[in-house]
């Protein structure tokens, strides 16, 4: 039984390593520090721009920060929050980010 459980854990990781080839996110696939994303979040709720402290409290990520795995991880957190905890207090979010120092890209929520 123990061997089966351990093998299942390892097999899960094999699946996630393969799955990562088809999606932009990098969860459970052992891709640490493989992408450097520098981002800035501009968040508006009811027409008011949130402060850095408020952004961090909302998404548990700094307003201006880096992610060492994938920009998708930051997007997942923002989108996940807005689709669940933030439904009754929706925000308009603009995330400006650079991947590995390249040209700036923009991601918006709600997506247009």
């Amino acid at each position: 039984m123990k061997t089966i459980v351990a093998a299942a854990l390892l097999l899960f990781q094999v699946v996630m390593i393969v799955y990562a080839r088809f999606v932009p996110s990098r969860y459970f696939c052992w891709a640490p520090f493989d992408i450097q994303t520098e981002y800035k979040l501009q968040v508006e709720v009811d027409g008011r721009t949130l402060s850095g402290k408020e952004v961090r409290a909302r998404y548990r990520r700094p307003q201006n920060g880096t992610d060492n795995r994938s920009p998708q991880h930051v997007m997942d957190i923002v989108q996940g929050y807005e689709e669940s905890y933030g439904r009754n207090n929706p925000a308009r979010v603009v995330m400006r980010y650079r991947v590995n120092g390249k040209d700036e890209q923009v991601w918006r929520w709600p997506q247009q």
Partner: protein
Amino acid sequence: MAATVSEPSWNPLRCGGTMLPVNLLVMAKSIAIALLLTNHVALLPDPFLPFIPGLDHLPPVLFQRTLQVLFVASALALLFNRSVRLSAFVLGMTIIVSVLASKAYYGNNKTFCGFVLFLIGLYEPGKEPWMIRLQLVLVYFGAGSNKLLDTDWRTGVFFQNWAANRLHQPVFIAVSSYLPQLVLAKAISWFTIATELGLSGVFLVRRLFPLGIWGNLVLHSSMLFFTGSTFTMFFYAMTASMLAFASWPARPMLVIFDGDCGFCALTKGWVERLDLEQMLEWRPYQSGVGLRYGITDTDANKRLYLVNGDRIYSGFSAFKMMVLCNPISYLLTYTVLAAPGSGDSRFRNIVVAVLLVLFSPLFQPVGDALYALVARNRRSLVANSNCSIE
């Protein structure tokens, strides 16, 4: 490796007499020490955007406090040799549950710690720890293959941006200024890819384990020196995991020493005090025990010998084996390394560098020369010492 039978000691420096082989328990304790000293308990989250739906319906404060209590309790139980497999399992599960409960908490270093401790908890006595070894294979394969398939890694763009613009690494910036653009970054990128993929293969072949262990230690130490960061728990957990590949002595090792030598007796006394697992059996050469191993009077007069199974070590090598086969060496090392906390530490870097040099094959000639110097002058090091062999 079979587990020993005696009752587990409450002494945290002891690692024998439990349901885990000594090397795996030392590995688990080393990770636990680093987790405790870096105050990782404070990072454990309440549920937030969990990977498993519904976890965030649990009372958040109760959830977090429960995890924290279980984390500390299991880590301490592990250190004090209480139900070590269960303790490792619970400690691993607190981290795994934390990862699954919060996307904000998720991180590769935490996930690795959780998985490795979980697998140690599932260890079955008398068997090789292949599941733990395969975990390392997967980590290096995942890391190497992801980089290989990433254009920015293959071209050096990632490394150039990271080293120059993010880390402002002075050595990298200085060296790369003499080279065409991206050449140095590309070379380091491909070296990293090759090393990670190479390690994933090496750790599948038993006779290549020593090469893999050195590759791991050099790779992660290099990252420490280059970035000044332990990547939270990654440095501690990845290096400690090498104990799963180490050939730990199954029975006490024989140490053959000069019984007429006062300095030798003094050294023996100190080493025996630290040999809590009683892994060393000291026998004077004068008893004739060395003859069966082909050790002559001339040999014994020059250096000490250590017999481990069918392998014989002498002088500096013998002392290295005594250090490497003593759990206290690792527990003390990880305590010293983790003590400065999670930030950059020149002290930590120096300790790691010194240990790497001392135990590297490159230092062997120097170590042998220093040992010979001490051995030649041992009569003058201890009063009333008589080191002649009749």
